[in-house]
């Protein structure tokens, strides 16, 4: 059996719509029988945050960052027409009507399809995010691990 094809996606953005696009491609690629990696860095890490507050020890700055950033996929804003948080409500209403999956479920489906979700540890430190605050069953790595996947990648995207 020949080697499976690979898709890698860097999710840098913390926008709901861009994260949706990333996860739709990730799920599609998994259905295409690719080995898929989604590498989350900077604002993209917020998509992996647990929705509930997790009790962890933090400094003042880290706490502030934690409060200012969206806690989890459903709290992300839109890249356009965010209208102070009204935009996401509107788009979720429309998505429901068209039976498009919300981001949380797209991430769950990706995990079911064995898409490898990776959190960049360097930017986790910068933003003051700890492992306990992120979803279970994800990997932690840096740029070299990403490049290991990407250099064999047939589809490599930066979103």
């Amino acid at each position, binding site marked *: *059996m*020949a080697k*499976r094809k690979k898709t890698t996606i860097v999710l840098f953005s913390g926008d709901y719509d861009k994260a949706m696009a990333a996860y*739709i491609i990730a*799920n*599609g690629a*998994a*259905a*295409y*029988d690719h080995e898929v990696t989604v590498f989350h860095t900077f604002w993209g890490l917020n998509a992996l945050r647990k929705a509930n507050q997790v009790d962890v020890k933090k400094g003042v700055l880290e706490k502030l960052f934690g409060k200012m950033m969206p806690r989890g996929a459903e709290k992300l804003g839109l890249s356009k027409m965010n209208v102070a948080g009204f935009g996401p409500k509107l788009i979720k209403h429309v998505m429901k009507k*068209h*039976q*498009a*999956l919300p981001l949380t479920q797209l991430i769950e*489906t990706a995990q079911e*399809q064995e898409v490898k979700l990776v959190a960049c540890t360097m930017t986790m430190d910068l933003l003051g995010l700890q492992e306990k605050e992120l979803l279970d069953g994800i990997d932690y790595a840096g740029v070299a691990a990403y490049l290991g996947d990407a250099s064999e990648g047939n589809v490599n995207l930066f979103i």
Partner: protein
Amino acid sequence: MITADKVLNVKGLACPMPIVKTKKAMEELFPGKILEIQATDRGFKADLEAWTENAGHQFLGTIEENSVWKHYVQKASDVEEKQ
């Protein structure tokens, strides 16, 4: 007339779920068997054609009935399957 061995209902579902579910259903099918996929997503036909070709299966065709598309795919025998 094509007789399906299994029917998959993805009516109402939006991208990427029809193809995700098709992949799962095909895995459970024996080689040579035919899957009927009932869908309402307009873009799914192109998706399915590309996917079946990539996976080495056979796209048999589509019938439209009252805005529901019925797509027929035959699973490749083990030898034919790509990879």
